[in-house]
């Protein structure tokens, strides 16, 4: 049975759930059956947010089992690694933003936020492939960090294993999000930046 599992890992307020719903809607348009497991609740107060998105021909349980992860979409590096520790395997491709969101304790200087290079090399040992992008420059040009989720959707759109055509993903975004000009720019920048990133 065809099955493709995506985990969107991030921090409350990054638009994680919207990201999941856009991919799910695009999957529907492609004739797949999405099942989404959302974790939220207290998450708006700066906590970890994981969205489990499962694409198949029939309904699956809401949580991705260990080792069954195909695509790890990382909106934040630390949370990407947290997701990988739980679910990744050699079949996993991680595509992540390297922009950190500090924790209350790292902000306070009580613990050190891990070095990005250490996170990336850890991800390399846990996943089959990783692609890291730094959206700072592109998003500064667009003028807001709030479209990071759309930027990252652009980054995964170019991935050859994703069973959703990038045109369909883009069209779905256009139909579901407001202020399309900004989102379009973010989507296209994400697509371009990931293509230029080292494999």
């Amino acid at each position, binding site marked *: 049975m065809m099955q493709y599992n995506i985990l969107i890992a991030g921090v409350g307020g990054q638009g994680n759930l919207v990201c999941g719903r856009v991919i799910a809607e695009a999957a529907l348009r492609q004739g797949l059956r999405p*099942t989404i497991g959302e974790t939220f609740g207290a998450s708006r107060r700066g906590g970890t947010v994981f969205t489990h998105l499962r694409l198949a021909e029939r309904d699956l349980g809401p949580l991705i089992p260990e080792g069954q992860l195909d695509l790890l979409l990382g909106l934040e590096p630390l949370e990407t690694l947290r997701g990988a520790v739980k679910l990744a395997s050699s079949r996993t491709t991680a595509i992540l933003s390297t922009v950190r969101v500090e924790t209350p304790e790292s902000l*306070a200087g009580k613990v050190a936020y891990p070095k990005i290079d*250490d996170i990336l090399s850890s991800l390399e040992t846990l996943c089959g492939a990783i692609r890291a992008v730094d959206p700072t420059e592109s998003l500064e040009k667009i003028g807001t*960090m709030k479209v990071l989720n759309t930027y990252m959707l652009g980054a995964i759109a170019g991935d050859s294993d994703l069973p959703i055509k990038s045109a369909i993903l883009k069209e779905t975004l256009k139909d579901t999000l407001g202020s399309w000009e900004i989102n379009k720019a973010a989507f296209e920048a994400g697509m371009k930046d990931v293509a230029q990133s080292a494999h």
Partner: protein
Amino acid sequence: MTGISGKPGGTSLLSGNEAIARGALEAGICFSASYPGTPSTEIATALMEVSERYGLYAEWSVNEKVALEACTGASWAGIPSICSMKSLGLNVASDFLLNMNLSGSGPGGLVIVVCDDPRGHSSSNEQDSRFYAKASYLPLLEPSSCQQAKDIIPFALDISQRHQIPVIVRSTTRLSHSRALVKLGQMPKRKCTANNELAKGLYNVPNPHLRHKELDEKRSKVHREFENSTLNWISGSDKADTIIIASGVSFKYAEEAVELLGLENIQLGNLVTSHPLPLNTIIEWIQGKKRVVIAEEVDPFIEEEILSLAGELEWGERHQFYGKRNGFIPFYGELNTDVMKQALLKMEGTDLQVPGERKKAADAAQSILIPRPLTFCAGCTHRNVYWALQKVKQRLKGNLVVAGDIGCYSLGVFYGESMETMQSMGSGIGVASGLGQLYRFGFEKKIVAVAGDSTFFHACLPGLVNAKHKNAEVTFLILDNSTTAMTGFQPHPGSRTQKKDEKKVSIEAAVKSIAPDFYQRADASDPDALTDLLHKTIGMKGLKVLLLDSVCRLEEARLGETYENLPEVTIDSEACRGESCKICTSKFGCIALTWNAEKKRPEIVEHICVRCGACIAVCPHDAIGQGES
């Protein structure tokens, strides 16, 4: 993203909660009353959003007990109703539940939806609410998928109407908060007309025991219906030697675990009618099986019923049982496919083999991971209150105890452990009213209770009246941000703005009518002024109440308020004492303040800062400032 009003015959991507709301529309329900609580909130929210369109009455009640009472009133008058709540809400409503079950719910029909939260993702406890179905002798249904969550509501309402008892539908977090394609059914022509005559004798006295007998007879009738229910189904070959009996979302986990392990000699039974348990169905399923696995969240509710049946029928020799009771499945926490896989392997006498390399990589990654605790938003005034309380505690040389309550301000437990206790809605003032009597036994600490505005109405009034009446030595802080922030900004009686048919109830007027020994309304935005006020008030005798005007930054953002016209907060790096101080970042801990390790100075995170200026008062060296507006 069409919401719950998609066309009959079509499909929609609905969450478990939205599916339940859609089911309520398809069932013809006309009345919804609820109190918000994760993971149940979106059921009532979804119904509220379409209430005008479908002629539904939907309210956020003051608490779950009132919600259940309101729904029962509607059902008694012939109006089909739905009452949704989280696990802890049913505890609040249970006093009424265990009376109304005997009285009967009348002709309208009443569906109670309770959403449990295994692992307590968004709860102060981990509980299994299904035991209320047993305690109240009421039918209990557990859907396994979003589709079933929708389909089961009309089914539940039908049982309720025919037997005139409420039917409990139980969901758990992963069903309520998952989304899948749901095939939509017909919407009936909604025709709700209230009976002007209520049935006679809607009470249990003078013979509650005879009502109990009648209820047991209703239970037997429902039991017979459940024996024939097509909701319970079994897959796989009946020649298999093993069966997994699973309820709720555990069924999906069991199904996938069997598939991943490639187990063939195994059947899967999906039990949806969990109480009263369809014993003959279970006997039929188990017959000829050597091994019986029971998968459910949270407690061994079904398992214990089956084990007691096994005892009666002397099955010990013929079947081996695997579940929570003998530790094959952990008796606490959530289930998932991996936990089920582990349990099935254990049953087979093996263990999950994790390759050494993967384990090494995971351990190495784990060692660099840091936790991400929840925290107050930038500019949240709750932080100011706890900051001030910590200051006062220092001034009192630690002689202060804080009894906390349920809401965003519960996060005080993560903020320098600012509160000593935090259990249930309203328990802060109740616990404080007891502690406030202990001076006679040598208890020397000053006592503070903290609660929010929605919680004040929900459960604090009896505790506050008790504290006043018994002359308890307590300071009660009401953090009034005018919204139910934790669950997504639902309005409550004290909210600043009210719907056109609803009237505001003033917290201030309610408190003043109780006439505490001291009352003051104050602003929570200035940590310095707050510290002095708290210190002064806590030092007074008797019952003191401070109503603190607070600000929810998320609610402000939602309402479109911006802070960009306010002057920027700045840090004077000359005046800052750097490493030797760090009070702003490491003690006050607003997430808009970060520590720059290279420069050894704090910095403002511009895109997070809401320019409230609370941190200005926190710096002992006047290094933080704000320009003129």
